[in-house]
């Protein structure tokens, strides 16, 4: 098992803030909007340096999405910022009609996704956003794993013409990916080669998959670990190549098992390479209040859950 050294843990939302600031300096067409959460979204540095390119919308997310769509007419590249819940379900129809169907170059940047929002509870812990966004034609869906990757993804999506949903979160997680990485949309990243099982993880579950890989190694299981930072378009080639080798797969995500990464992978496998699969995901429930660690344990989203899923799926291998 490869080692994944890191010098500090940081929140992915701060990676977004850092990426946005850099975009402000390098791309004059980038503008930002926020619905009364600039602190939570770490947009302060961008606003300070580029006040004329920032639009405070107030607590009016539907209006924010429409304004962002309008700003693209005239060549601007708007980045909207609010919590993932208010970035998706609350404004689904606005995104569907004014952004996705209209093919507008809007970047919907969503923080505090999933259970790791913690104590605020289920009203704010969206676990359905990846599903809603990936069902929209023209939409690209990205869920990076750490600070550096979120920063790189933020910068990369400005150069991608078309609507993007970028999902990140609140807790600090090990910042282990390279600071100088070039983010390629739709390109899965092989983190650790292995032969016994494929673990496909996204977002905060990528680090949990690395921890699980170490636990599995101690038990003599050689896991291949892949970071699926782009849910749509899905890197089917990378997934099929790995699964052909290992013969079984575990998907891991901070999302409902309905509509998430796991279902996207299952569709690919069902059509092209039927393979035993286990899902590390929330089992069609809402979340609740608690610390992020408590919630990830209770809802089965930690390294032990991945280890257990690996054992289940390996037992199903022919």
């Amino acid at each position, binding site marked *: 098992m490869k080692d994944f050294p890191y010098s500090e843990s940081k929140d992915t939302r701060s990676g977004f803030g850092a990426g946005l600031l850099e975009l402000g300096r390098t791309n004059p067409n980038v*503008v930002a909007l926020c619905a009364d959460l600039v602190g939570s979204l770490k947009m302060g540095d961008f606003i300070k340096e580029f006040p*004329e*390119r920032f*639009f405070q*919308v*107030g607590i*009016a997310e*539907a*209006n*924010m*999405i*429409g*304004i*962002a*769509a*309008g*700003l*693209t*007419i*005239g*060549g*601007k590249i*708007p980045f909207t910022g609010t919590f993932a819940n208010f970035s998706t379900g609350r404004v689904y*129809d*606005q995104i*569907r*009609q*004014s952004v996705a*169907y*209209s*093919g*507008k170059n809007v970047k919907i940047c969503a923080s505090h996704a999933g259970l790791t929002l913690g104590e605020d509870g289920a009203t704010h812990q969206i676990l359905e956003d990846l599903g809603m966004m990936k069902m929209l034609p023209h939409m690209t869906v990205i869920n990076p794993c750490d600070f550096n990757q979120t920063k790189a993804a933020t910068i990369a999506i400005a150069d991608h013409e078309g609507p993007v949903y970028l999902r990140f979160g609140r807790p600090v997680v090990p910042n282990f990916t390279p600071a100088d990485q070039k983010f390629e949309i739709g390109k899965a990243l092989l983190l650790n080669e292995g032969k016994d099982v494929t673990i496909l993880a996204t977002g905060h579950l990528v680090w949990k998959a690395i921890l699980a890989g170490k636990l599995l190694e101690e038990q003599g299981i050689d896991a291949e670990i892949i970071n699926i930072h782009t849910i749509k378009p899905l890197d089917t080639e990378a997934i099929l190549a790995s699964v052909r080798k290992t013969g079984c797969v575990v998907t891991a995500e901070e999302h409902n098992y309905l509509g998430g990464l796991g279902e996207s992978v299952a569709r690919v496998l069902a059509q092209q390479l039927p393979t035993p699969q286990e899902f590390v995901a929330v089992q069609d429930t809402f979340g609740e209040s608690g610390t992020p660690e408590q919630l990830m344990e209770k809802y089965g989203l930690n390294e032990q859950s991945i280890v257990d899923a690996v054992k289940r799926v390996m037992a199903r291998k022919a």
Partner: protein
Amino acid sequence: MNPFNYDADQLLNVAHQVRRDIVRMVHAVNSGHPGGSLGCTEFLVTLYFRQMTHDPKFNMNGVGEDLFFLSNGHISPVWYSVLARAGYFEPKELATFRKLNSRLQGHPATEEGLPGIRIASGSLGQGPSVAIGAAQAKKLNQDDKLVYVLTGDGELEEGQVWEAAMYAAHHKVDNLIWTVDYNGQQIDGPVDAVMSLGNLRAKFEAFGWKVLNCDNGNNFASLVPVLDEAKALTGQGQPICILMNTQMGYGVDFMMGSHKWHGVAPNDAQLEQALVQLKETLNDY
């Protein structure tokens, strides 16, 4: 500068043909929304043949042009006819309205690349927000042209329009003219019966808008001066709202003044009855 700059007689000439196009389009596919389309004919004809600086060669960003957004997308027949008659595409394409593989979707869309359409609409209440964004992009681009948006009056029951109203005043989006088609009708009946809007003028004024009334949006002599006045009031720190009184179904006697023709097409006999009231001025498509 408008590419036509038509006088009142020329505008009326176009309006007659647009009304013929509308009733023929919805009749041909036995679906669509003639009522609001007929009621807003003078408004759209005035925008495209007199008021707006625009280029029928069409480019999406529209820098250096006035932009129009139709928020109440169900009145697509009037918009499609006006765009075709202004040269955005051939009038014969109006025959494809609502048919399979057409660029003229039931509600306006960009997906098929129809010139003149900059965003999809139909799900109501979104146009003012989009228009605000386009207006702010103009300011960022140092583009001094204006943005027009049309909504229905029933559409004002959607909450998003009031988010937009609040925002535009707060951010002083003063290169924006929002016209409300104040015909008092919606699908289920008179607006006052379905969900009364109260004192609409006072509402917009309380939100910080400069409000103008158009007594009769189906009369160029009433409409044109109000549009001129609205334009003159831009750039003064306030967004502009026009409450435009119209009659749903105007120009076809049996369709006028009732919500019943909101989304119903005329049958063959009714089409004949309508067309005898509408002079063919620019050749039917």
